[in-house]
């Protein structure tokens, strides 16, 4: 359309501009020299019109012909519009004229125009050329689109087949990658990584389900056995009441385990990230230290504290406090009487680190790799109370804050090396 407007359309505009200029010049001649001057001007113009295009008709009052080369006044020129297009008889052939009507006044009227047959022929040629060019372009576009679609289908087909296999329940297929390393390979590699991650998560879910089934069955069975035994053995109301209270306590413990599992799931899902805010953990850690200091003294343990004045970071204050509480719980649980548990924190260039160190038996290297899995309990911890979920929550909280949990010996090489757990969180 733009091409047509700039070529064929320009021809029309050019003709109209020439006619208008001609009419204006004749009207100026009328003002300067009267009607005889206009008649002379028209005859002069017709006499030197080598292109044989100019058309004029000047009629006086009562349609008296004064000048021009049109045989009659066309009826179309009596209409509302000044610009008209009429068929024109020329040497036996039919041509076309573009005319502009000028009402001179005093019953005199004039037509100024051009024979546009040549222009129309040229416009026809241009339009035909444009139509051919547009058709060819459209053809190439369709061909290109078809080739592109075929190419896309060929490249997307392995991805589509893999997705279809996955959706039918088989998680093992992966997208085959070519050596081109293009966008499709990147998409395939990303999809493979996603599938690996999904498989890993599903494995984890399966593990948790197994662990829940295994680890909760024991306390439930124990509580049931106790209640059953009390039912048979209790001789009075007091012993029966004591047995029921013990059963309630056991069930509360089981409920707490469920609560912990749900909380870890919530943290891992990232749902708590909306609660992130700028916070100073130093006073929070100080409060926790004060609380656990009393608890440690009661067990004849010592809680050493080394905290900075401020520990600013962005995160969930409550979750971070819970993580530190879990670490302290573990440390106090495994530290013998007279031992020391140290709670310290420091601010690095782009991280904050909270450490809890104990004097306990420590943790073997193999167990450290599994520490943090839900319900995992090292052999040394089997005899101590606990659910195996404390460090899982710590790891989940660290991951939520894009941090990490580091485990190392407190006293390397010692018989009881102890365990230091560092919670390292980015501050930037």
């Amino acid at each position, binding site marked *: 359309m733009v091409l047509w407007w700039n070529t064929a359309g320009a021809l029309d505009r050019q003709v109209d501009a020439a006619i208008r200029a001609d009419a204006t010049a004749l009207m100026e001649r009328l003002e300067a020299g009267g009607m005889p001057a206009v008649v002379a001007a028209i005859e002069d113009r017709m006499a030197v019109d080598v292109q044989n295009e100019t058309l004029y008709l000047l009629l006086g009052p009562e349609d008296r012909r004064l000048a021009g080369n049109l045989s009659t006044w066309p009826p179309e020129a009596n209409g509302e519009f000044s610009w008209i297009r009429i*068929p024109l*008889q020329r040497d036996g052939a039919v041509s076309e004229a573009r005319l502009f009507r000028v009402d001179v006044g005093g019953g005199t009227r004039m037509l100024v125009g051009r024979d546009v047959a040549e222009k129309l022929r040229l416009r026809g040629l241009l339009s035909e050329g444009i139509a051919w060019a547009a058709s060819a372009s459209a053809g190439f576009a369709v061909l290109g689109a078809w080739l592109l679609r075929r190419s896309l289908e060929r490249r997307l087909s392995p991805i589509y087949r893999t997705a279809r296999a996955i959706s039918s329940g088989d998680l093992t297929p992966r997208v085959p990658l070519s050596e081109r390393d293009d966008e499709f390979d990147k998409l395939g590699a990303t999809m493979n990584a996603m599938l690996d991650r999904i498989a890993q998560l599903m494995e984890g879910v399966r593990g948790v389900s197994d662990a829940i089934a295994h680890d909760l069955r024991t306390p439930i069975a124990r509580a049931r056995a106790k209640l059953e035994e009390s039912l048979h053995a209790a001789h009075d109301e007091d012993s029966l009441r004591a047995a029921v209270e013990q059963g309630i306590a056991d069930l509360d413990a089981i409920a707490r385990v469920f609560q912990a599992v749900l909380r870890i799931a919530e943290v891992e899902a990232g749902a708590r990230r909306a609660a992130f805010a700028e916070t100073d953990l130093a006073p929070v850690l100080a409060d926790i230290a004060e609380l656990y200091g009393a608890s440690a003294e009661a067990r004849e343990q010592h809680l050493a504290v080394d905290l900075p004045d401020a520990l600013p970071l962005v995160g969930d204050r409550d979750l971070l406090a819970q993580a530190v509480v879990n670490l302290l719980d573990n440390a106090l649980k495994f530290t013998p009487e007279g031992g020391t548990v140290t709670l310290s924190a420091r601010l690095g260039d782009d991280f904050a680190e909270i450490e809890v160190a104990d004097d306990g038996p420590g943790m073997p290297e193999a167990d450290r790799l599994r520490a943090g899995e839900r319900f995992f309990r090292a052999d040394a911890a089997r005899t101590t109370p606990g659910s195996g979920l404390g460090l899982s929550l710590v790891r989940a909280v660290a991951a939520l804050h894009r941090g990490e949990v580091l485990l190392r010996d407190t006293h390397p090489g010692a018989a009881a090396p102890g365990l230091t757990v560092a919670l390292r969180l980015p501050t930037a």
Partner: protein
Amino acid sequence: MLWAGPLLVIFATSAGWADEVPVRVTTDSSAYCAELATRFAAQPGPRAEETAIMAEDGRRLCDTGHVRSGIAKLRRALRAVQAGG
């Protein structure tokens, strides 16, 4: 037969156009050719030989029935004279 109505209208309209006498151009005639030749002869001032030959060619073309070509030649000659040639 429903299509017959519009078809008749189209036919009648076409017939009406055919009856209409189209506007004719009066400057394609041998009379106008003679008028141009007179106008050329009446032009004052000197004229080049080739301009006169051009006008003469135009006149001859008109006389032999090639009116439009003759008129074109005469117009060129007139233009050349008016331009000072």
